[in-house]
């Protein structure tokens, strides 16, 4: 789950990290109050959106008096921000962060994230902050340093020294950096972060370190114990995805014509791949999971068929935890309730496969049954080609 900048900064501030003074508003009417909290009428207004490149796209505005601040709030709230990352549809701005403007001398990069291969937390550092880190990694990899604090201990003196030398910090700045590094490490662990990116970590004109922008992503599996961040787990999902999640279904809408219902993320991806292999495109990714109820299967069917692009349905189940007869009953219920407007190809295998096939046979529904994955994909592709004319 991604946090907005203002939510991330609230976490940083609470952890005792140096962030600029700021106040968030959700309507232009709150501007005066925000300026009061800021303690001045000069600063920067930042549109809150899950995208990089906000500055270039007009989502960040400087102001030097109350009138300009009000104008910025008026312009930003409700605007659709289009950046190189959002695609042409852009994102709607619902909040603006007013912040005091820092006098920046240098910009550094500091991220804390998971290194899967090492099964450890990694620090990623660069003396060239403020830019797209992937671009730096590609063009000048020597300007990136990775360090792995010892698990359970966090960054020690030797690690701090190595980092400070690489970043070109003075002795006084190194002391500040050590404090920041330890606090970020602890924050990463205690709030179940997947990503804690500070870009830039700035050196101001006075030579002090300050965390100017942040990207915070939390581990979705740990949200049950991270309830105070203000984040919205559904912020970036479409309505179908949110509805699916309520039933324990993992659904991602795509642009093709073959609606897929599969169990297991690996098989769901492999089913999408094989559809592409036969020249068609999947309309969605849908993993019904291992323990979905009959009701959830019915719901999955409903969500997939609500997509107008779906010209054929492909059900591909290799039952392990999930018994095939439960899937079969869910499908039969769904078809009885909703009707069936497109061809439905069903492939069942694994736990209780005979019971599952019997349920479908007894229903008398006009389904296309498939023997295996290849047969299923081929039949679905043929059905779509026919439907398209």
């Amino acid at each position, binding site marked *: 789950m991604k946090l907005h900048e203002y939510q991330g900064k609230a976490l940083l501030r609470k952890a005792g990290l140096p962030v600029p003074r700021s106040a968030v508003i959700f309507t232009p009417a709150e501007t005066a109050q925000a300026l009061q909290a800021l303690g001045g009428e000069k600063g920067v207004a930042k549109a809150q959106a899950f995208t990089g490149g906000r500055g270039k796209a007009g989502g960040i505005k400087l102001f030097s008096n109350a009138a300009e601040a009000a104008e910025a709030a008026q312009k930003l709230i409700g605007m659709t921000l289009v950046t190189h990352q959002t695609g042409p549809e852009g994102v709607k701005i619902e909040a603006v962060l007013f912040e005091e403007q820092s006098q920046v001398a240098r910009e550094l990069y500091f*991220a804390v*994230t*998971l*290194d*899967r*291969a090492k*099964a*450890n937390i*990694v620090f*990623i550092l660069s003396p060239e902050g403020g830019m797209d*880190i*992937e671009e730096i*990694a590609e063009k000048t990899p020597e300007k990136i340093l*990775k360090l792995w604090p010892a*698990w*359970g201990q966090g960054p020690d003196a030797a690690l701090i020294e190595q980092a400070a030398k690489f970043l070109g910090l003075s002795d006084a700045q190194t002391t500040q950096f050590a404090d920041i590094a330890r606090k970020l490490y602890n924050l990463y662990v205690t709030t*179940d972060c*997947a*990503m804690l*990116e500070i870009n830039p970590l700035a050196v101001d004109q006075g030579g002090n370190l300050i965390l100017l922008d942040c*990207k915070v*992503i939390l*581990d979705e*599996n*740990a949200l*049950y*114990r991270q309830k105070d961040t203000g984040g919205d787990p559904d912020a970036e999902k479409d309505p179908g995805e949110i509805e699916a999640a309520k039933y324990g279904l993992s659904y*991602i809408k*795509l642009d093709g014509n073959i609606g897929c219902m*599969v*169990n*297991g*993320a*690996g*098989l769901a*991806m*492999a*089913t*999408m*791949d*094989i*559809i*592409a*292999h036969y020249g068609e*495109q*999947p309309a969605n*990714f849908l993993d019904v999971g*291992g*323990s979905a109820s009959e009701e959830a299967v019915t719901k999955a069917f409903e969500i997939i068929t609500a997509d107008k692009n779906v010209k054929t349905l492909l059900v591909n189940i*290799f*039952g*392990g*935890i999930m018994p095939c007869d439960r899937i079969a009953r869910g499908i039969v219920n769904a078809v009885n309730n909703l009707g069936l407007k497109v061809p439905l190809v069903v492939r069942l*295998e*694994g*736990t209780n496969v005979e019971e599952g096939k019997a349920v479908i046979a007894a229903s008398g529904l006009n389904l296309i049954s498939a023997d*295996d*994955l*290849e047969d299923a*994909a081929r039949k679905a592709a043929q059905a779509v080609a026919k439907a398209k004319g």
Partner: protein
Amino acid sequence: MAILIDKNTRLITQGITGKAGLFHSQKCRDYGTHVVGGVTPKKGGTTVDGFAVFNTVREAREATGANATMIFVPAPFAADAILEAADAGIELIVAITEGIPVMDMLRVHHALQGRPNILIGPNCPGVTTADVCKIGIAPGPIHKKGKIGIVSRSGTLTYEAVHQTTLLGLGQTTAVGIGGDPVHGLSHLDVVKMFNEDPETEGIVLIGEIGGSDEEAAAAYIKEFVKKPVAGFIAGASAPKGKRMGHAGAIVDGNAGTAQSKKAAMAEAGIFVAETAAEIGRKMVEAMAARR
């Protein structure tokens, strides 16, 4: 021979009184696994469908001589269940539970360093030595005793590979689902090494998916050390980008992590790479024919 589990495996189930825990304990017993009991705190001393229930793993091990456990404990408590099993001296720990926080698994990973316990999973289907012993949720009847070792991150793709090798008459020694979580126990590489040393295993199927660099590490090892024929598949070539990984994650993995890069690493290592999941079995046959 096979690997990891055999007729001497004595299994307990942590979370045996839950619906899934009991159902799959029964299925494992039906398959021939010695399921010697289970653990559910506060339900010790009772029995459920003939399985003795204990309060702790230590009590269960002392009473039953268990040397393996499968874990169905809910995600918030699963990490502690793994550590409890390790502390009680259970050699093989198979964690089926999905949705365990990464931070919990980091804690488990580091706590198990330097200790003899083997962890498989979490978020995995388990491990099956064909016709002998099954731990986990894989459907038993699709397996057939034979000569192929299978290792996969995805559960249902494990079944797919098992089923195909059965239909083609190759059969399996052992099939291992290592799980799809970013921090997990046995890796592809660990299991490939075991299959390479197992005299009964004549060919290896390696199945991966996008993200991480586990498959690349296994491919590099295979290139250098494995003489047995290997077939491989990577799921997710058509998956949309950026649904899971943040920017720094992409950097940690360098250029690795895409289906293309993984397939290229496999091909480079002499692995027969299946274009679709439907031809994993056929690629294994081809790989075996080519080595003769």
